[in-house]
């Protein structure tokens, strides 16, 4: 146990950072000179500081606004700001792609305040993906509004409007706010369904701001696209046509995403004019400790070691973990390392969704003020919540996408001065691929953010909401699919009724209540601690509840361990009690896929086909069947248990490969080995797929049909099928692209398996040998050669 040294002052930071990095840089030098084919530090990139590019304030901006900016020390604009403002004030929708800390808020605050100064009836609506981000912006806008007020700009009302807004304040806000800061959830359930009360806003709505545009991908983005379709209808009703100003982190398709979400053409501004300090980007691959099994040192232990290196030098750091569980494990490790005297303020904190808001605000403040020296977070802190400029980002595991990696790395670093980002690779195949091929990361385009606004589950829910808000006419459209057909079906089920040439909502329900934007169901579970009376300590969403809150599960919050005593599934509650133990639990789940509709062209034309590849609609039944107990630090498996939990079902889309019977027949291996080979191949393909699709690993699910149970270890069919499905009800649009990239997928999978230095399978290629059997790697490689 070490005592943490004081935070170094700003002047000495560059030097402390250099000292902390020196060992890693030296190791890298050595690796470059030697011929180590599995170096510990696989890459060091130094990103040069970038000079600022400036532009003058546009003449059209109100002089009171310019004066206010000058008071805040802004005498000119960065080039991208000027460009974005020019588009917006000319009435063109715009999306600005900017790194962290490049002054993106000015890109939208300037046109908004300018418009209000020119006509005080002007209104603007800001959307942030989370409430916390809106709170952050509120402070900034208040300050600007006040400065403008001093310049004779009159009073500019800026308010947040979200689930936390007190009922009695809402009426006043509706009347007085020039600028409403909200989130998609509130617009969906609180503003649009009550649009008559917001008539003043909608009649005068000139700008809609969408911040953190890249956050709206997958289900969330598909919902937002539909909410904006509804918003357009309501604006049309009140006679306004707002301009969209969006800002996004770096992704491959910002313009396309903005246009899909807003349903309107958008201009793109992507050359940032903001300066940036020098930054080191380092990849660390934990060393192999068992060459035969291909087992590397635990990446969490490695992350701990790296983090301590920086903390010892008096630097302030953020550690990103991949899951709630690893966040808690790392928090525990780092708290153990720097336990101060009893009663002292915590310098190491955990942070993730599921913490109650007060606890989160306290941690954010601690980071800004410097009392919190290290925060271990899930992606929850990836977005632009103001936690000040930290010195170092340490990532435990590859975040899954290039965009997210840059975004997380951006949480450290200032406009001048040195910062660093360290990526510690786990043994997951995708991590190993990135660690061994750093160029892939540094040179490739970041990911596409995909949305599918026409996912039928999502679309239909919003058509109901839209019908509630304003009656559809018999000639109206909504998105690209035939809304009249949907209304016809909704009328069969008595949600709407055709009266004259309009569809009237004829249902007593409030349809927005039945939709949750963050997932497909709106349910969540609350976690009740019974240690000292009953106390709610957290919550978790419906889909992950069975795997983290099953009975006997160890639930961890900020390093505190609790054991689940009872899961009340019907009432959505888990009762836990504090425990002291040296293990955590990891759920085992199982998914079964049934094909509903094969949409591959060959299958549609009715020809008998020998094609391996397919895509189409499937039904997935998944269930948590058991759990493993895993010891902290050593990661030994020290026991397991069976569970009997309800199934979860979904209708989604999938890509699949059916291995022909004759191919299986011809394999020169035994039955159990063939099975292992198919499983190993599936494991590797499923891990390569996100790289090709440029999507998040969690977006895909895997199921292999015809491989029998763990005990039987035999094939139950002559032609097994590997399903890689969209892990969202209704599908989110990955299956067809994957089907198109089938050949590439097999080629890359072969590269991964054949290029892996392990002997007979490891977690980085076909899966750990213990789980897949001794010949899995050989069979998988052989199968691939035949299938290609």
């Amino acid at each position, binding site marked *: 146990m070490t005592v943490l040294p004081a935070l170094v002052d700003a002047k000495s930071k560059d030097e402390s950072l250099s000292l902390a990095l020196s060992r890693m840089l030296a190791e890298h030098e050595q690796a470059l000179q030697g011929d180590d084919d599995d170096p510990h530090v696989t890459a060091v990139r130094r990103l040069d500081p970038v000079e600022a590019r400036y532009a003058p304030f546009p003449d059209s901006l109100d002089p009171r606004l310019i004066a206010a900016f000058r008071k805040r020390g802004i005498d000119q604009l960065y080039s991208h700001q000027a460009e974005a403002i020019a588009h917006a004030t000319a009435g063109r929708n715009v999306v600005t792609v900017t790194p962290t800390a490049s002054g993106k808020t000015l890109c939208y605050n300037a046109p908004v305040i300018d418009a209000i100064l020119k006509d005080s009836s002007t209104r603007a609506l800001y959307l942030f993906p989370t409430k916390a981000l809106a709170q952050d912006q509120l402070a900034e806008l208040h300050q600007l509004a006040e400065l403008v007020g001093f310049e004779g700009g009159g009073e500019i009302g800026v308010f947040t409007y979200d689930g936390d807004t007190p009922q009695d304040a809402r009426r006043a806000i509706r009347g007085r706010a020039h600028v409403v800061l909200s989130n998609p959830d509130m617009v969906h359930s609180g503003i649009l*369904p*009550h*649009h*008559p*009360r917001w*008539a003043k806003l909608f*009649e005068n709505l000139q700008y809609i701001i969408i911040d953190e545009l890249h956050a709206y991908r997958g289900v969330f983005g598909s919902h937002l696209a539909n909410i904006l379709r509804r918003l357009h209808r309501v604006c049309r009703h*009140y006679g306004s046509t707002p301009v969209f100003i969006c800002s996004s982190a770096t992704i491959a398709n910002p313009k396309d995403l903005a246009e899909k979400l807003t349903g309107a053409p958008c201009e793109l501004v992507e050359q940032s004019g903001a300066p940036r300090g020098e930054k080191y980007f380092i990849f660390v691959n934990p060393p192999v400790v068992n060459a035969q099994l291909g087992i590397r040192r635990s990446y969490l232990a490695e992350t701990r070691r790296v983090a301590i290196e920086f903390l010892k030098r008096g630097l302030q750091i953020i550690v990103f973990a991949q899951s709630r569980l690893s966040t808690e494990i790392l928090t525990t490790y780092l708290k153990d390392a720097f336990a101060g005297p009893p009663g002292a303020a915590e310098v190491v904190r955990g942070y993730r969704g599921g913490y109650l808001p007060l606890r989160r605000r306290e941690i954010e403040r601690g980071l800004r003020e410097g009392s919190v020296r290290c925060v271990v977070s899930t992606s929850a802190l990836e977005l632009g919540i103001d936690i000040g400029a930290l010195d170092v980002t340490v990532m435990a595991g590859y975040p899954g996408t290039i965009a997210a990696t840059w975004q997380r790395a951006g949480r450290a670093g200032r406009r001048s001065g040195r910062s660093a980002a360290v990526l510690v690779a786990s043994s997951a195949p995708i991590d190993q691929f990135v660690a061994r091929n750093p160029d892939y990361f540094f040179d490739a385009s970041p990911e596409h953010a995909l949305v599918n606004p026409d996912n*039928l*589950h999502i679309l*239909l*829910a919003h058509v109901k909401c839209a*019908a*509630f*808000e*304003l*009656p559809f006419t018999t000639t109206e459209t909504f998105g690209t*699919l*035939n809304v009249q*057909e*949907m209304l016809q*079906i*909704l009328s*069969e*089920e*008595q*949600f709407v*009724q055709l*009266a*004259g*040439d*309009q569809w*009237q*909502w*004829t*249902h*007593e*329900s*409030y*349809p*927005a209540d*039945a939709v949750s934007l963050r997932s497909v169901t709106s349910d969540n579970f609350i976690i009740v601690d019974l240690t000292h009376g009953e106390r709610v300590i957290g919550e978790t969403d419906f889909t992950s509840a069975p795997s983290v809150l099953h009975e006997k599960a160890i639930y961890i919050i900020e390093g505190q361990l609790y054991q689940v005593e009872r899961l009340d599934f019907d009432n959505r509650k888990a009762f836990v009690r504090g425990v002291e133990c040296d293990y955590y639990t990891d759920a085992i789940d199982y998914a079964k896929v049934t094909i509903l*509709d094969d*949409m591959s062209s060959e299958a*549609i034309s009715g020809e008998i086909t020998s094609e391996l590849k397919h895509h189409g609609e499937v039904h997935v039944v998944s269930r948590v069947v058991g759990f493993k107990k895993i010891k902290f630090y050593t990661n030994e498996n020290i026991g397991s248990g069976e569970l009997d939990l309800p199934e979860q079902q979904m*209708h989604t889309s999938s890509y699949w490969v059916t291995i022909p019977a004759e191919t299986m027949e011809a394999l020169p291996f035994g039955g159990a080995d063939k099975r292992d080979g198919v499983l190993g191949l599936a494991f590797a393909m499923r891990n390569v797929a996100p790289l090709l699709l440029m999507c998040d690993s969690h977006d895909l699910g895997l199921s292999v049909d015809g491989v029998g149970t763990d005990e039987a270890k035999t094939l139950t069919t002559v032609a097994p099928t590997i399903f890689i499905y969209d892990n969202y009800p209704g599908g989110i649009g990955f299956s067809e692209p994957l089907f198109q990239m089938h050949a590439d997928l097999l080629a890359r999978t072969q590269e991964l398996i054949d290029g892996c230095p392990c002997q007979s399978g490891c977690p980085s290629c076909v899966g750990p040998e213990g789980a897949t059997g001794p010949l899995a790697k050989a069979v998988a490689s052989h199968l691939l050669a035949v299938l290609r």
Partner: protein
Amino acid sequence: MKNLAKRLRAIVRDNRRELTVEPDLPQPGGGLTFNDVVSRSADVLGGSVLGQEGSACLVVDRVYDADRYHGSRTVESYRLSPDAPLGLFEPKLASTPEWASRTVFFDIETTGLSGGAGTVAFLVGCGWYEAEAFRVRQWLMLGPAGERPLLDALGRAMDDASLLVTFNGRTFDVPFMETRWAFHRQSTPTDDLPHFDMLPAARRLWSRREDDTSCSLTALERSVLGFHRVGDVPGFEIPVRYFQFLRTGEPSIIDGVLEHNRLDLVSLAAVTARAFQLASEGPTWCREACEQLGLGHLYERQGDLERAAEAFALAASRADERDLRARALERLALLRRRMRRFDEAVDAWQTIVDRAKRPFSAIERRAAEALAIHHEHRAHDLASAQRYAEVVRGQTSGRRVADVDHRLGRLAKKLELEKQKGDLAVAPLLDSE
């Protein structure tokens, strides 16, 4: 995409929630055009199409002749007198000029209670007195297109009104209609219209217990007017009936809802009239103690303390329920204390305590406490104060015990002190003997 309709149907059915009410009603008839529905509805419901041909709004007028009975009295007997004491019930309206020239009673039926743009007032009813009768005019929407003409017509009716009377309209009917006008981007005709909500007044006069919430209009029309509805459509069925009517085009389904709304309006006018009559005639004219108690409150608020005291005293003597009597006496005691007639206040409190049964109600405990305070601070009778405080102590539990103990402790000290003083005062006498 293959089979869009089939997939959509599967999703919709999967997500469908159970319908809460599904009354046994005629099923959809086929082949009716929208215009057929409009004209058939006008026939069956006895109304006419509002405005031009093909409009999706019906207007239905009914006249209740002056000599017709509603409950135990005639329609004419419920006509409001221009000098009825409106300001007693609603001080803000005290100086409304000419409010009685066109008093409009107002009630709406909606497609749900949740609010939001998708809930509409599909039926709006207004009632007013004409020379020889009470007239009810209703507007019924036959589809979304009917709302605009409905709102226009309603707006004109509001423009002609001098006072709007509703039952719970302060929180429901009027704000609801305001959002509908806002929806259609119209100005709000109710903005400057004086509005009297009868519900709070009814609660004052006819709510028997402090926690009584059954002050519904239908309960009042039975107890106050002696009117009993037969075959009335229950409120929760109303939205479902309307949806069913839209689906089937069968006007008989909705007829009962129109009748329900009409009866609500006639009863609202009648109940309002009865309330004003009670207030004009005064507490001696009341049949029930709760009415006298309610009037007492109103007089007190108006500053007519003597009349209020008379009403409370009458209520206390008339009341046959212990709780109601205690409430009246407590009001009386507080009022007399306010009037600085402390002895009379003590009489009232004393009566409460004398008639109290164990365990004490909150009022009875407060009365005993008031007596303890009075005797300690005003009458300076420490022994009596201690006696009452001990009564309070015996009837107190929980957090309040500490307060009572505090009082008892203080009284004990004062008594001790007094005793010492008494001893000192007595001592010289002893010496002199």
